[in-house]
C-alpha cells in the first residue's frame, strides 16, 4: 500500500520523508521490490544524464487520471508521484521524487548510501560531489532550485510523461534508446486503463511520432525536444528568447516545426568567446558554425548547454546533431 504522504484532506501537507523507503515507492523495501501500484515507464527520448541507467515509476491515486486534453501538456491530479532512479554501474546513486500536493508540486532527491541500505533526503542545496562517474568526475545531485529550473519552465512539470514520449511508435534512432522495462505502461496502456483521458482525436487515431523527413532528423528533433524543450519552448519563462526546441503534437494543418524555424539561420544572442564566425544557432549545412552544437559539445561553465544536470558531454548526441545539420539542413 502506498504510504499516504498527503495526510488528511484539508490538512497541512506533511514534510518530505527523510528516507526514500517512506515515499511509497517500495512494497518490500528489504528486497527493493517496487509496489505494484507504481507503474514503470520509459520515454522514447531519454534525457542525457551522464550515461546513468535510469528507472522511472508513476503513481496516480486510485480513481484519478491524467487530463490529456492538451496532448503537449498533460495535467496531473493531486497526489501524483513520480520517482526516477539513477544508477552508475551496479549501484543506485540517486532517486529523484516529484509529487503534486494540494499546495503545488514539490521536488526532492534521495542520495543512496554506498552499501545500498538506505537513501536519505538530500539537502535543499543538493550534493555537489556524490558518486564517481568518470575519471575525476563526480555526479552532482541537484538543488531544489535546480529541479525547478527545468521542471517549472514549461506547461507541465512532468517532462517525460507525455503522449509523444510514451508513444508505442518508438524511435529506434533515439540516442541512448531504452528497452521498455517489464510491465511498463506506454500511451496505449494508459489509455486502455483509463489513466489518460480526453486526448484529441489526432493523437488517438495514430501513435504520435516526430514528423520528419529522415530518420536522422526524427532522432535529432526528438533529442532536442527531450533535452532542451523543457526550457526552450514558446510558453514558459524563456519564451522571450524566441528559441523553441519543444516538439508540439499539433493537429492537422499545423504550421512549421519551431525547432527549425527558431534555429536554422537564426542569429544567436549568445556569443561564443573567440569564435566570431559562429553567429547562427544552426548554420545551414555547417555544424562547425552552429552555436547550438558548440554549446552542446562543451562543459565549460559559461559555454555549456544544458547549463545544468550533466557533467559529461553527450558525444553520441553531438555526433547526431552534426550529422543532421551537415546532411539534412543544407540550404
Amino acid at each position: 500500500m502506498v504510504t499516504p504522504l498527503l495526510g488528511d484532506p484539508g490538512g497541512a501537507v506533511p514534510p518530505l520523508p527523510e528516507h526514500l523507503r517512506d515515499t511509497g515507492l517500495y512494497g518490500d523495501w528489504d528486497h527493493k521490490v517496487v509496489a505494484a501500484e507504481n507503474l514503470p515507464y520509459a520515454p522514447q527520448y531519454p534525457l542525457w544524464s551522464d550515461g546513468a541507467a535510469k528507472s522511472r515509476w508513476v503513481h496516480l491515486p486510485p480513481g484519478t487520471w491524467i487530463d490529456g486534453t492538451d496532448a503537449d501538456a498533460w495535467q496531473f491530479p493531486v497526489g501524483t508521484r513520480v520517482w526516477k532512479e539513477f544508477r552508475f554501474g551496479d549501484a543506485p546513486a540517486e532517486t529523484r521524487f516529484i509529487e503534486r500536493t494540494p499546495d503545488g508540486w514539490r521536488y526532492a532527491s534521495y542520495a543512496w548510501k554506498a552499501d545500498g541500505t538506505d537513501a536519505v533526503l538530500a539537502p535543499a542545496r543538493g550534493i555537489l560531489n556524490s558518486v564517481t562517474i568518470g575519471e575525476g568526475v563526480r555526479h552532482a545531485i541537484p538543488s531544489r532550485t535546480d529541479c525547478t529550473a527545468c521542471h517549472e519552465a514549461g506547461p507541465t512539470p512532468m517532462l517525460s510523461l507525455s503522449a509523444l514520449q510514451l508513444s508505442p511508435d518508438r524511435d529506434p534512432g533515439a540516442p541512448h534508446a531504452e528497452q521498455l522495462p517489464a510491465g511498463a505502461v506506454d500511451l496505449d496502456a494508459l489509455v486502455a486503463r483509463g489513466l489518460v483521458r480526453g486526448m484529441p482525436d489526432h493523437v488517438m487515431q495514430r501513435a504520435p511520432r516526430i514528423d520528419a523527413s529522415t530518420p536522422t532528423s526524427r532522432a535529432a528533433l526528438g533529442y532536442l525536444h527531450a533535452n532542451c524543450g523543457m526550457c526552450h519552448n514558446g510558453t514558459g519563462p524563456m519564451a522571450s528568447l524566441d528559441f523553441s526546441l519543444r516538439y508540439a503534437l499539433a493537429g492537422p494543418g499545423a504550421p512549421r516545426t519551431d525547432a527549425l524555424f527558431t534555429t536554422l539561420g537564426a542569429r544567436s544572442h549568445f556569443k561564443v568567446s573567440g569564435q566570431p564566425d559562429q553567429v547562427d544557432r544552426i548554420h545551414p549545412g555547417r555544424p562547425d558554425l552552429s552555436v547550438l552544437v558548440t554549446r552542446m559539445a562543451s562543459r565549460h561553465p559559461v559555454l555549456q548547454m544544458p547549463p545544468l544536470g550533466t557533467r559529461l558531454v553527450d558525444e553520441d548526441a553531438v555526433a547526431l546533431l552534426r550529422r543532421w545539420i551537415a546532411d539534412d539542413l543544407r540550404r
Partner: protein
Amino acid sequence: MNMTVSRSGTIVFGSAVLIGAVLVARTIPLGAAVGRTPLATTVALQASGADPVARGAYLVKSGACNDCHTPLKTGDNGPEPDMTRMLSGHPAELAVPAVPTLPAPWLSAATSTLTAWSGPWGRSHTANLTPDRETGLGTWTAQQFIDTIRNGKHQGTGRPLLPPMPWEAFRHYADEDLASMFAYLQSIPAIRNKVPEPVPPPGAPVPPPGEAVPPPDAPAPLTALRTAPTHGDPVARGKYLVTAIGCGDCHTPMTMGPKGPAYVMSRMLSGYPSSSPVPANPALQGWGEFGALEPAFAGAWGVSFAANLTPDAETGLGAWTEQQFLDTLRNGRHQGRGRQLLPPMPWPAFGQKDDADLKAIFAYLRTVPAVRNKVPDPVAPAGK
C-alpha cells in the same frame, strides 16, 4: 556578500593617520544623534500589528548580512555559512595570513571565511552582531545601532567602520527597518566571540596618546526616512531597496578620486566596463576572494564581473522579463535557468526577498539610464 573595495572612501583615504583614530576615544554632544528614537518606531510597528523581530529577520536574512558576518566554511559540497556561528563575526581564534601585496588592479582580499578583509585601509574583521554582552551587541541600544549605520562610526560616535562594511548604502534604510534589524539581532543566540581590532596598513603613523586627531570628513547629508516606501509605488520602493541594499557598490564601477573611491555615475549599475581589460586571478594562498575598484572579483570560481543591470536591450536587462529576474535571484542562474551566478553575487540571500520586493527592484531598474556595456564573460579557473 556585498563585496566592495572601499565604501567609506572619504574616511579611509583622507589620511592613513585616521586608522589611529580607532584607538582614540571621542565624544560627541548627545544632541547630534541622528534620527528619531527607534523605540518610538518599534512601538509604532508593533501597534500596527507588524512584528519587528520577524521583519528584522526578513531584512537581515535577505539583506545578506550573513554573507560577511557568519563565517563561510568550505567542504566537499562547496562553501556554505557555518550557522553554528551565525552572525558572530570573524572567529577570534582564526589566524589570518599577513596582508598580501596584490597585483593591479586588485585592491582587496578576503579570507575564505569572508570575515577578514584586507586592503588599503589595513585589515578589518566583521563584527559580532549577536547579543553577547561582552563581545557582541548585548549592551547596545537600538539608537546606538542606528547611529552606527547612519554615521559610519562604532556606536554612532566611535571609531570609523571600515571597508567592506557597506554603511554608506545601509544608512539609507528607514528608521523602522534599522530598528527591526536590531530587534531581530537582539533575539538570536548570543555567541561569545571577541572579534579582533582592525589592523592598520603597514607603515601607518600612529599619533602619540592624547594628541588630537583631525576628525574624518562627515558623511553626506541624509534625510533619513522614518518608514520605508510601500509597494503602492513599486518604483519608489525599488529605488529605496536598491539604494539601501547597496547594489551599486558592486554593480557601479569606481575610480580613485581625491577623497578616495568614487562612483562613476555615468555608468551607474552598468557593471564591469567592457573597455577594461580582463584581469588575471591573483590566486594568492590563504585568501579566498579578491576585489578591485572596477567590479571584477576573483576566487576559487575564477574571475567574475558584476552584471549590467541597466535596461539596455542588448547588453543589460532590457530584454528580460520580470519573471526571469525573479527566477535569477531565486535559482541563482542567469535568467533563472542558465549558467550559475558566481560569487560574490549574494543571490541565496537576495532570493529570499518576497515577490513584491523583487518586482519593485526590477521595476526601478527599468527606469535607470540604459548604459550600453557588454560585461565580459566570467573566466573559469585554470584547467576548466
